[in-house]
């Protein structure tokens, strides 16, 4: 999705938008640290959002593929693929953590 698609999405009054954040290796390979994203009515779970992002192709498809160990947090709490997402939520995608 390029910026014009994003603007069209945001312009739809009947859909809310979420803030999507990317960290560490994902931030680097996807080339962005955050974006605002309007979700279609049927895409209000983490898994659906991940599918939507994968459909962008290229690095998105590769890095967010089912085989990749991607972690997701919704509103700064670890989430699962079936976790619900609501308008205004902050959804973060990142690799398994390596602190300590």
């Amino acid at each position, binding site marked *: 999705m390029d910026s014009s698609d994003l603007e069209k999405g945001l312009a739809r009054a009947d859909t809310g938008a979420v803030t999507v954040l990317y960290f560490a290796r994902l931030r680097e390979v996807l080339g962005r640290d955050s974006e605002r994203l309007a979700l279609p009515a049927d895409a209000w779970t983490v898994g659906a959002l991940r599918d939507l992002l994968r459909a962008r192709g290229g690095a998105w498809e590769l890095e967010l593929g089912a085989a990749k160990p991607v972690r997701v947090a919704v509103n*700064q*709490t670890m989430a699962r693929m079936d976790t619900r997402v609501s308008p205004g939520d902050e959804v973060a995608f*990142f*690799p*398994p953590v*390596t*602190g*300590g």
Partner: protein
Amino acid sequence: MSIRVQQEDFDVGAELTAMRGNRAIGALACFVGLVRDVNGGAQVAELTLEHYPGMTEKALQDIVEQAKARWDVMDVRVIHRIGKLHPTDQIVFVAVAGAHRGEAFAACEFVMDYLKTQAPFWKKEQTPDGERWVDARASDDAAAQRWQGQEAS
């Protein structure tokens, strides 16, 4: 209870001294993690620690709450550094104060094991072959999992 995510170094002695105020404390257990110069065969010249501001503090808080619910401990301190670090630098500090050593040791190890697998920090290494993100290790997951379904002793 104190949780800090910071670029600056910390003074282990000063942190432990600050925890000694309560006369009921009989044990102080502490762990300090350091930057090593070798990882997976590669020489590490520099390490960069990235975190998720907000969530990182929240995750650490949650881990400490779990430790306090599980063991009868009086105080827990966690410090985790971010930014650029070099071999021999201190990365992480966990200290637990309790009446006796058993719960202090156990809670300290529990906090470290959960921090390694739950707190959003990521390490990137600078090696002679260039930069690389550190991969999560299965042994860390195993270390965290062994606490599940196990009662506090």
